[in-house]
Every structure is written in C-alpha cells, then in structure tokens.
C-alpha cells in the first residue's frame, strides 16, 4: 500500500566497486558478497544465509573464489574458497562464483555432497518436498550421484518441540536459521545446537532427546536462555525459514504439496498489526498460512496465532444457513424468511406498549459490533444502528472501555490517518508502554521493539516486568493496576527527559481504559515532553471501528455525535432527515441496560461472551429479541432469536485498519456463498425499506471517502497542540505519507473520486491542517 512509507532519507553512501564473474558492480560499503552478487543477477547457492538474520557462515554452501588487492596493490587470491555470506566487499575485489571458477564449483558440489551424507532423502514423505531449497539446490548445483556408501545417521523422529512445531533432526543441515531467529528476532531461544562433529544436532537440551548411540550429556540438561521450557509466540517462523524439512508444522504435516495449493495474499485477523500473510488453500479449505514479506509492517515475520489459528472457520459448528428460533429451537431457514423474521422481531420488541409509558420509553435497541470486523463491516453496523434503528447505542469495544477513552479516540485517533508507524516505533529512542504488553497484545509490534534492542530504551508502566518486557530489556515504572495516571504524572526525571528526544513514543494499550485518567495523563505527558502517542489496541478491527464511527459518541471520520453540524453533515451524506442525538451507551452500558430489561432488541456481531466481564447470558435472556451475525454457533448465536451467518475473513474481502492507521485491504481468498457483515446488514435494512448502501466493499469505501475526516469544529473538542511540535523537516514527509495511505483508498477503490480531487497538488491537505485533508477531496 505505502511501500515508500519508511524509506530512509537519501544519504550519501560510500560505494565499493568490485568485480563478480567479470561484471563490475558498485555496492554500499559493508555489503556481503552474496548480496552484491544478487544485485548483478548472479545466484550463489545458500542455506544459512537469510537477509533478516546476522551472517553465520554455517552451511558453507556459498563458497566462492575471492581475490583482493594486497598492500602492494597486486591482486592476491585467498588460498581457499570463501563463504560469500559472511565476507563483506572490499574495493577492487575480484569474485569468481561457481559460474566462472571451477574451484568454487567443485567446493560447492563437495559441500552439498557432504550435507547430503546424513540427509535421509525421504523427500516423498517430507512436507518441504517441492519447495525445498536443499532439494532444488541439490538438483541445480549438486552431483548426480553420492559417493557415500556407509550407514546414515538415524534419529528418532519427529520430535515435537511444541504442539505446533515438529523437529526432524535427520533432515537438518545445521544452518542455524532457526536458532538464530529465536535468539536474534524473537528472543526466546528454545532450541540450540548441541554436541559437536557428526553428533551435532539441533535440540532442546532434553536428556531424553539425546538417546542415540549410547551418548549421554555430561551433567544436568541445560535450560533455554529464558530458563523455561519452550514457549514462543513466534516459533512458526522457524518452520518457514527452515531451508530443509527439519522443522515442520504439525498443522500442515502431510497435508498437501505446493503444487496443490492456491496461494492468496491476505491480512492476518488476529491482532491490530495487520500483518501480511499468504493463505494457501486447496479445494476451499485453508491448508496453512505463511508470512508475506511486507517491509513496512511485519517484515518477514508473523505470530503463531496468525500462522496457525485458521482452523476455527471450518469447524463443525460453522454456520452456512440462517437460523430462526421456532418453539424454542433454532432451525434452519431461508435468507428471505430469516431477514423478515429478524426485522419483524426487532420491530415487535421495540414497539411502544400501550398504556405502559415507562416501558415504552426504555425499549430501545443496541448494536454490539465486536472488535474483529473489518472497516466496512463496522461502518455498516453503525450506519444500521443510526439510520435504521435510530440509536447511538452502538459499540465495537467488546472489552473494558471508558468515556475518557472514547474522547481520546475521537480527538487523537479517529480520522488522523497514518500516525506513528512501525518504522518510527523501531527508530524511537525511547518507548513508554502504558497498559500495553507488547508480546501478548501487539503481535509483530514486539518484534519491531526487540529489533532495536540496545539502541532503544523501553519503559513499561506496569505492576511488574512481564517476560515479554524482560526480553525488551524494559525499565519498570512500577504501578498498581489502576494507578497508571499517577505513575505517568510522576515519571522518573530521566524517563521524562528521554521522552523529550525527537521521535520518542508513548504507546497506549487497550488496558489504558481501565484506569480513569490514564489518557489524560498520557496526553499531558505527550504535550509537555513532545513525545508522540500511539494507541495499539489488541483486535484487528478496533482501529477500523474507530474510523468507521462504530462507537456511541463517534460518527464516521472522527465526527462527534454531540456536534450538530457533524450530525447534519453525515445525515446529508446518508440521505436521511436526521441522526439520533441522544448520547449512546457503551458495551457495558448496553448490556447493563439489557439485563434490567431496558433493551428491546440487540444486534450482536463478532462478540464472544468471554470478551466481556458483564453477564452476557443474563443480558441476552432479558432482551426481547436478539439478532446475531456469526460465523459459527457461538454462545451468543445459540442464545439469539435469529442467527444470520457471515463470512470469515478468508471468504470475504475488506479492509483492516491497523494500529498505525494504515489501510490493510485484502481480497477474498476462497470464494464461497458466505456474505460479509456489511452485505447482510444491507439486506436486513431493506426490510425497513432503507437503502443502507453497504452491499459491496466498493460502495462502503466510496461513502467513507466521500464523508472523509471531520472538518473544523465538527470533531470532539481537542486539546491544544503539543508545545514541542516535531521539527518541520519531519513534518512534511509525514503529512505526505498520511496522504498516501488514505488517498490510496480513494484512488484504487473509487476511481471516479480522484477526478474530482483538486489537481494542483497531490496532497493539498498538507498545506492545511491534516484533519481536513479528506474533506478537501469530498465533493
């Protein structure tokens, strides 16, 4: 989407000129030979080399002949072939790869033969078969025949490292990609090399593992670096980077072959990072999910949840047809019947009761959206609530929420486009985490923070240092839960000083809503130090819901419900007379009212009862009529009166807005009959004779782009800008970057809109307040 977003400023880099296979190439100083060769299109075989990991020189497959000028200026060849993945270029160096040097070719063939000595060659049963670098490179660079005639080394296999990762040590070529990933990237070294020579192997330092050939380790088995048994949120990445079939995933074991699979790019739905993934599916069933390389968001990595948690959508309790409650039982029904029943039920449950004024006034409706839906779905939910049901009782925050949080979101998050980015978070000199546990709640945010370990100071305002915070080498500002505002106000002087450095970031998690005053304190801190604020919720749909206005006090684009002008503007855009002006209740408020019988009908989206602390069961029982839009027969669906099945993310298209504010659009991976929430709501609204206009992703995005962000005066009252505004050279690119992100929607989704955009400057808003830039594009 915005591939250029984190491009570093062009600096003069020192170039080194060398010759590879007779081709002269100039590369920046410090480049590895193997990368320089890539730049001139020469491929050197390799196993251990990975661009995101530090050089290891473990597999020796990339041997090349190297000669460099000596002190006298004469070219002096190295006596033996050198590993091109560990050697940096020097001026005047002459490199001869396997293409031009017989010596290098012989060395590579020898190494490959050596690597294959103990390899079981069980490619037919190996999951990696067909996409295996060892298989491919043995074909392209190896000898046709092995001269090894002895017995191969045998290990017990497979060894389950965890419920998801299986290790097959026979196949391992000891490249150490997995151990380097665990140490360098994830910080939880659960496996490491053990033994030496022919007995060298990857292992967990478990005595039971080392049972071959009568060998026993001397002394007690070592623990991993964290001193614990294996537990990592990122272990699945080792399976993806393993160049042989040594690490395989239990979920994909023996499931498929690469030629069987259809690969569809998508966006992970399990956290607010919006990591790019690849869904590999066969015959309509997801077989596995892999990380896609997205340099500005998730780089090469995703969490195990994003990788392995995909089976939920194809379980037995998946809903494919609408359900209606008849005589106390949910029975399958046709779509027209179910939609009519849902509309009739909501109407009946909210109709004023004759002669009972007290009840009549209270029998409202509520819409619980849940934080997992896409931007388009969230928009449809809130539009349905406001334009059809006539209520502001719509909330996407199925978690602890507060009025203060809503004001904060409206003032500083909604409609602000791209804020702090992953790249800026990585480069920040200091990051203060408030109500946020990066490893648990942030997904790949943790990996970005860990990437700058040693260059960045992480301060956690928390009761104790979690394991994740320890891995970030975080400083603890101890606080009792609920006392975060006080802790922020009395931050140690050195932290406060550090926050005044340019680029410092304060991260607010969703738990910041638990302590009253946290947001205010954070805003105060930001304005007094000049640090930037980033709000990182847990769920994928949270930021999108804020943008779409699926909060009781917020309209789309960060407009406040309390503002008459904003209501009028949105009402005009929607073609309705007026929007409800009464203050809406949040999830807890709606459920509390429902439990007391104050809610006539509830429309519930992707909410599960375990999300909430309130007694959902009691609230649903006391509600007259419940419509549930669900993928599976959840607890709430079981308690509903009408259940409308909706599509899981892999079967629909849409947009998640990640915590940065970056639009992460994804297309349908598997085409089925399942409809997205926004389409179902569009159909449901027709029962009231209302054209909701959310039938397609395109129509929703056209509406969102037309509405744009709130203009001056229609947003919530905002705080004065921070005293130490970021210096202007940084201001300009950030503004254009924001424009790139948000205007992409306007350009790609609604081509007609771009023609109406002012032609003079691509980002006219940059000359004005950033808040108005989408308004300027609106007709």
């Amino acid at each position: 989407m915005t591939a250029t977003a984190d491009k570093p400023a062009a600096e003069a880099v020192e170039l080194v000129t060398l010759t590879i296979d007779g081709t002269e190439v100039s590369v920046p100083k410090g480049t590895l030979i193997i990368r320089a060769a890539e730049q001139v299109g020469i491929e050197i075989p390799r196993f251990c080399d990975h661009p995101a990991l530090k050089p290891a020189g473990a597999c020796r497959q990339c041997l090349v002949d190297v000669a460099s000028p000596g002190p006298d200026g004469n070219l002096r060849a190295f006596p033996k072939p050198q590993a091109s993945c560990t050697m940096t270029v020097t001026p005047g160096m002459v490199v001869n790869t396997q293409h031009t040097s017989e010596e290098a070719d012989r060395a590579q063939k020898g190494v490959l033969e050596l690597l294959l000595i103990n390899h079981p060659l069980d490619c037919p049963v190996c999951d990696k078969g067909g996409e295996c670098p060892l298989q491919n490179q043995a074909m392209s660079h190896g000898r046709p025949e092995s001269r090894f005639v002895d017995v191969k080394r045998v290990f017990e296999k497979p060894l389950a490292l965890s419920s998801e990762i299986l290790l097959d040590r026979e196949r391992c070529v000891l490249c150490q990609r997995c151990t380097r990933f665990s140490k360098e990237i994830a910080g939880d070294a659960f496996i490491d090399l053990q033994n030496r020579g022919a007995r060298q192997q990857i292992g967990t330092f478990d005595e039971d593992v080392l049972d071959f050939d009568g060998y026993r380790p001397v002394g007690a088995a070592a623990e991993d670096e964290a001193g614990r048994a294996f537990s990592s949120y990122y272990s699945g990445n080792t399976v993806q980077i393993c160049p042989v079939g040594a690490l395989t995933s239990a979920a994909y074991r023996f499931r498929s072959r690469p030629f069987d699979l259809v690969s569809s790019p998508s966006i992970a739905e399990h956290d607010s990072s919006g990591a790019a993934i690849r869904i590999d599916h066969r015959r309509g069933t997801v077989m596995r999910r892999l990380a896609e390389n997205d340099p500005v968001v998730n780089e090469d990595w995703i969490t195990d949840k994003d990788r392995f948690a995909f089976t939920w959508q194809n379980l037995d309790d998946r809903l494919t047809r609408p359900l209606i409650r008849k005589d106390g039982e949910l029975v399958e029904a046709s779509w027209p019947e179910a939609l009519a029943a849902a509309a009739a039920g909501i109407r009946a449950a909210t109709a004023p009761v004759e002669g009972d004024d007290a009840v009549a006034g209270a029998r409202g409706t509520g819409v619980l959206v849940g934080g997992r839906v896409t931007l388009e779905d969230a928009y449809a939910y809130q539009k349905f609530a406001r334009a059809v049901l006539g209520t502001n009782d719509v909330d996407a925050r199925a978690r602890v929420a507060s009025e203060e949080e809503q004001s904060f979101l409206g003032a500083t998050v909604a409609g602000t486009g791209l804020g702090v980015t992953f790249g800026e978070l990585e480069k920040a000199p200091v990051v203060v985490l408030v109500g946020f546990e990066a490893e648990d709640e942030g997904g790949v945010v943790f990996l970005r923070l860990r990437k700058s370990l040693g260059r960045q100071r992480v301060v956690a305002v928390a009761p104790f240092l979690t394991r994740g915070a320890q891995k970030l080498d975080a400083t603890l500002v101890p606080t009792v839960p609920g006392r975060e505002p006080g802790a922020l106000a009395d931050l140690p002087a050195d932290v406060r000083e550090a926050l005044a450095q340019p680029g410092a970031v304060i991260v607010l998690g969703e738990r910041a809503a638990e302590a009253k005053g946290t947001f205010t304190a954070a805003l105060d801190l930001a304005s007094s130090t000049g640090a930037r604020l980033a709000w990182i919720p847990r769920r994928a749909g949270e930021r999108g819901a804020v943008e779409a206005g699926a909060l009781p006090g917020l309209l789309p684009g960060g407009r406040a419900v309390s503002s008459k002008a904003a209501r009028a503007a949105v009402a005009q855009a929607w073609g309705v007379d007026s929007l409800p002006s009464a203050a809406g209740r949040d999830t807890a408020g709606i459920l509390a009212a429902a439990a007391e019988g104050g809610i006539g009908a509830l429309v519930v989206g992707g909410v599960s009862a375990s999300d909430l602390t309130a007694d959902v069961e009691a609230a649903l029982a006391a509600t007259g009529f419940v419509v549930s839009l669900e993928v599976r027969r959840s607890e709430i669906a079981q308690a509903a009166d009408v259940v409308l099945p909706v599509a899981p993310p892999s079967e629909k298209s849409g947009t998640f807005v990640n915590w940065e504010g970056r639009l992460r659009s994804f297309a349908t991976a598997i085409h089925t009959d399942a409809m997205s929430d926004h389409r179902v709501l569009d159909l449901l609204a027709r029962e009231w004779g209302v054209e909701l206009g959310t039938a397609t992703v395109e129509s929703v995005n056209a509406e969102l782009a037309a509405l744009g962000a709130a203009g001056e005066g229609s947003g919530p009252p905002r705080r004065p800008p921070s005293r130490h505004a970021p210096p202007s050279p940084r201001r300009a690119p950030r503004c254009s970057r924001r424009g790139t992100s948000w205007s992409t929607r306007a350009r790609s989704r609604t081509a007609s809109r771009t023609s109406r955009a002012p032609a003079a400057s691509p980002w006219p808003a940059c000359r004005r307040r950033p808040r108005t830039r989408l308004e300027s594009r609106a007709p």
Partner: protein
Amino acid sequence: MSGSDEVWKVNRERDGKRETFESNLPKKGPIGEALAPVAGFGVSLRNFFRPTVTEQYPRVKTPPMQRYHGRHQLNRHPDGLEKCIGCELCAWACPADAIYVEADSNTPEHQVSPGERYGRVYQINYLRCIFCGLCIEACPTRALTMTNEYELAGPTREGLIYEKQDLLAPMGANMLAAPHPMVPGTTDGSYYRGEVTGPVKEQVEWVREQRPEDPTLPENRAKEPATEEARRG
C-alpha cells in the same frame, strides 16, 4: 458487378489455366482396362482364404500385450500394508491432472503403510487419464503400477473417478488387511529392501484383538474364502 461474381470470375479464369491431372501410375493395357471394374474384389477374394482376425469381444476377451497400460493398481507389501505413502508424486507427474491424493499420518493405532505417512484419499479420474504411465515412473515405492484391465467405461462421470478401494490390489494369499502395525523391529527401509516377506505373529495377534471379524485373519480366511466383490466392499 458484385463482389461474389468477381470471385467466381477469378476462379473460372484460374481453373482454365490449370493443367489436367495425369497420374504417375503405370498405364494399364487394354486387358487391364477391361478387368479394372472387378479388380477391387481381388483384395476380398484374397482374404477369403486367410485366417480371420475378428475378435469376439465381449464374448471372448483376448488378453492385451503384457505391457499394455490399463487400469492402475495400488500394490501392497507382502504383509498387507499398503505401499502408497501419499507423497503425491504421481499427481505431480500427471500431465492430465487425473490423480488426486491426500496424505495423512500413520499412528500406532492406525498404521496403513510402513513409515510415517500414508495416502488417505487416492482418486484417479479415468475420464482424464491418458494412460501415459508417467505416474508409474514417478512412484518412489512401486505402489502404483498398471494392470492390463482395459474395460474402463461407465454410465456416470462419478463412477469413473476410481477411489482408493477400487484401485487397491486384491489381498494376496497370506496378506493381512491394513491397518495393522509394522513387523516388529523393522523400519520402512526394511520393507523397501524386501526384508518383510509376510505377516508375523504379532501382527496377526493385533488384528485379532482389534478386528476379530477381519476376513483376512487365518481362521476367518479358512471359514469363508472372500470373493472379489466382498473384498471390494
């Protein structure tokens, strides 16, 4: 003059210029010319006195050549375990995309083939198959071979997608139906090297305990010799 008339005129002119056809065959003499009308019967008359080549199919079925590419067969190891390991190399090799395989893990309770992996789903679509035999070449365990059976026609499309049970070779004389454990103390390599020659006591015991009614158990085999149809189930 319309366009088509123009074309006809051109054609006529071209035909007028064309030389008349003259055969290269030797010209017949007057007798030959006279007998020409009945000369064609010579072929028929000659064949009256030759042995007949008409095959009385389907009443009489002539075996095809030994290496004829007929219906596929999924073979078994001598102890009854399946040779197919579900590697999908046959499906990969197939130029007609006629083969579909889904593999699964062998477990101690459900050991179908030696080693870790077996083919849970195995389908060959005979509407697509071109009988080229590339799948046979690709098979690493000699699980897939071809029989001489050529009667592959049917009234439905579904019926011509052969499932695993349609393709599996019939049980040999001593074989024990899978699933059952491997011969104790062996690896999949022992099977491939031909070191397993038949079911052993432990395997028979295991099957007797798990499936006492199994028709391939020695005691049941003696009772009722399983017919081809019964085995196909």
